């Protein structure tokens, strides 16, 4: 069902060596994008591309330009420079209404004076679809989001989650070449959010060639949904990688901290583990990579440390200062040996809540392998 997409261009841009010509022609491709709002640069020299069917999550703190990026792609904002290409079409100079891109707004932007069915049919009427086909398509997409019985309701009569699904159906009904979602779940409560994530993933699986750009500041959402993450900061890309890769191998301290809590290893421990530090960089380790051995008394300390060192693992002694518990997991605040809590570095250790831990103030032993440490740029 082609909706007036122009013939596919076979010209391969040199910048994308890693992609084949067919892939470039089919995916979404953005280069050197710069956007200014009110004279202030918001996005600077952004480049990335999306394969057909790829689910990209744009992640970042509020004000980092992620919504601006989405609006620029949709054509709601003028570009200062840059080029957009979708399935071989050059979008750069096309107005928003000729781009065939689906957009789901944060507050859904359902037209309050139109019924659910009329909302979904809006884009189809603009495409002059015959009435019969239009009705069928509306029905089909409402069924897709399980709202077929609400066709004649007005948006104000629906709950937030339902409105969100209508907005999704409306964006999908035009059978877009690219779907953009601007924090679509942020206005919903926690449980509904979890449920709708599942629905969104299911819908994504049903459109295996539709690329998606999903903006969020919620990293658990991003980790669960995305094929690839794009971490933005101050209008620039910090890192772009698959979720697991980005979590395990962050390039900077900011990226590491954004996706989860980290321990920055103090100088003494780095020396102990034989980790060499470049100036401006630091070594980090995730709390779940620090393993709790057991509570021990003073005399056995030396022998145990020696045994650990033989197996290539580093052993540390610390005193348990506090425990934070959140259901399945618990996080221990451990102050390392020697000195008070003010002068000595403390580490976070997370372990399953089922794990027995010593009482507060007791000594305990931590071990970790140097391979689990990451050398990251200190960009904070």
């Amino acid at each position, binding site marked *: 069902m082609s909706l007036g997409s122009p013939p596919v261009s076979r010209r391969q841009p040199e910048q994308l060596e890693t992609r084949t010509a067919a892939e470039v022609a089919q995916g979404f491709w953005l280069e050197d994008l710069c956007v200014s709002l009110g004279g202030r640069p918001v996005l600077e020299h952004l480049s990335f591309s999306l394969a057909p069917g790829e689910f990209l999550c744009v992640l970042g703190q509020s004000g980092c330009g992620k919504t601006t990026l989405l609006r620029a792609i949709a054509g*709601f904002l003028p570009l200062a420079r840059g080029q957009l290409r979708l399935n071989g079409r050059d979008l750069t100079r096309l107005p928003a209404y000729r781009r065939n891109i689906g957009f789901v707004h944060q507050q859904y932007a359902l037209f309050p004076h139109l019924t659910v069915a009329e909302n979904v049919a809006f884009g189809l009427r603009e495409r002059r679809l015959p009435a019969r086909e239009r009705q069928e398509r509306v029905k089909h997409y409402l069924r897709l989001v399980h709202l077929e019985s609400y066709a004649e309701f007005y948006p104000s009569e629906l709950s937030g989650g339902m409105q969100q699904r209508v907005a999704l159906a409306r964006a999908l009904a035009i059978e877009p070449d690219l779907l953009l979602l601007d924090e679509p779940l942020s206005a919903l409560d926690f449980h509904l959010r979890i449920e709708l994530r599942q629905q969104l993933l299911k819908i994504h699986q049903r459109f295996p060639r539709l690329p998606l750009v999903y903006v969020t500041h919620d990293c658990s959402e991003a980790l669960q949904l995305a094929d690839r993450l794009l971490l933005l900061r101050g209008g620039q890309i910090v890192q772009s990688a698959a979720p697991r890769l980005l979590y395990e191998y962050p390039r900077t301290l900011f990226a590491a901290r954004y996706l989860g809590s980290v321990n920055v290893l103090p100088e003494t421990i780095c020396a102990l583990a034989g980790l060499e530090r470049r100036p401006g960089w630091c070594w980090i380790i995730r709390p779940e990579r620090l393993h709790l051995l057991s509570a021990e008394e003073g005399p056995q300390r030396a022998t145990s440390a020696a045994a650990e060192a033989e197996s290539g693992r580093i052993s540390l002694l610390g005193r348990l200062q506090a425990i934070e518990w959140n259901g399945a997991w618990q996080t221990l605040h451990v102050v390392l040996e020697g000195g008070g809590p003010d002068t000595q570095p403390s580490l976070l250790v997370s372990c399953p809540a089922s794990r027995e831990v010593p009482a507060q103030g007791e000594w305990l032993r931590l071990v970790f392998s140097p391979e689990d440490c990451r050398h990251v740029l200190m960009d904070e």
Partner: protein
Amino acid sequence: MYSWMSSKAARWLGPVGLLMLLAPCVLMPLGSLVITSLQTGAGWSLSAYGRVLTDPTFWQELIFTWRLALLATALVAVLGLALALALFFRPWKGMGLLLRAVELMVAFPSFLIAFALIYLYGSQGAVTLLLGHLWPQASGSPSFLYGIGGILLAEVTYYTPFMVRPMLAVLALLDQSVLEAASVLGASPWRLLRRVVIPLTRSALVAGILLSFLLLQNEFGILLVLGTLATPTVPVAIYSDALINLDLPRAAVEALVMLLASLLLYALYRWLLGRSGWDWEEPGLANAARAQLGQPPGRRSGLAWLLAILASPGMVVLFFLPVVAVVLAAFAENWAGSVLPHSYTLRWFLEMDSSDWLALEHSLLLAVGVAGLSVLQGMLAALGVVRLKGAIARFFDFLLMVPSAVPSVVVGLAVLLAYHSGPFSLAGTPWMVLLAQASLTLPFSYRTVHAALLKLPAEYREAAAGLGAPPWRVFWRITLPLLAPALRAAFAVSLAFSLGELGATLVVYPPGFTTAPLQMINAIERGFYAQAAALATLLLLLTLALLLLVAALQPERFGPFYSLLRRRLRAWPSRSTVEAVVPVSGTGGNREEAPTAALPPS
């Protein structure tokens, strides 16, 4: 905001289009006023200015106008603020309805208030007699009505509701949790008022007071009925200079001086408004009756008592009394020398002659025309101004408020000067009345639509564009339907305003053409009070009927109702048609199983 119009052509198109749009109702009249003020018998000179500015009578009039306006403003402000506070903190059941009814006062021409006061407080008036019965020793004092006292009473009665409404809107905007926090921290009601409420609403308060001053300074109808030689004001002087002494340059200069003073005040008002972040179009009344002053258990404070008295239904009814008096007078056989009429009759309605009915018909046609023209102009102007930025946007915004900042007589005079001769001559036609009234209502229509446009989230337009709608389709399918409530509000107010307009109409009406207010003034001047009251009652009924009609035409308010109806209707035949549609739904089912078939082009 509307950034899709960013090409160079569009940048020029906007302002030029706006200038053309504003030409007939704003620019031409304003230009004619300036030209007339500079014209003397042979050529151009400033002699008219010299004549007026050195004339002590003019200064006397100006000072008296301001003194009167200042006095009335002080009274209106104190009473309005007290009433608004009382109603806000002591809401009662049915208050919202009554306040909405008070808002209808705009449909009640101000000169009718003055007229009604004659019935109420004249030497043989109902209230005067009632007081005389209650305190016989105080009776016999001469009526204060024809003089500054009567004028003040009429102005306060008419304009206090205008003050209450925006005050309530401001109070409704107050963060309720701040008031609660202050009470919890131990602030007594008086302290709360003095330390929290007043400081937080100060600039809006001052803006409201300035607006009242502007309206009172420009008042004409009340002065026409109750004014005497002892109460000379500039609007009345402009009227008599232009139409009785036929000294047009002098009238034009006086009008321009008024315009200048009003514009200075208006600029001050806008500046304060901008600082207060207060939107005077906000429907504050509907949301007003929410807060409660922290009431200490047991003993009631003095303020609480004061509030309770002020907020009583009786206080609000006081502003209704004139309307009641006019209606009563229309049905009274003879209402003089008694508190209530002795007997009632339909005589005054049955005796109305063809000229009365014709006047009503003219008023009706004129009102619909004025409202349509004003809403159309206001909407186009708002759409144009919203696209502009910076100084040029402010310039047009300012220009669009000029007609509301000057006395209606001045607008009438300006329209008369622009169209009584020359290439666009409309001399002797009712079109001039249409233009004058449309000019007077344009600011309100513009402001209403402009505010609605600014409140319209940009997401709707974006979403529509993203779904493939080009700009004009976005306007047609999204912006226009969503503006419908604002357009309707502008239409209703223009309609009501036109039905009661006197000042401008009095200046421009052609021979042989009358409107209902003109006919009433005529009757009052000849002493036919009962006939005037009957006509006023019919005009009031006509206004109410038209406003109800406009209010009823709300497709979006009945939207949920329609949707229910449609659902019911659809549910009923669907059982029988399901079988017939099977092949269609069958293909739909296939699609469901293989959804990839319906995917974007591959």
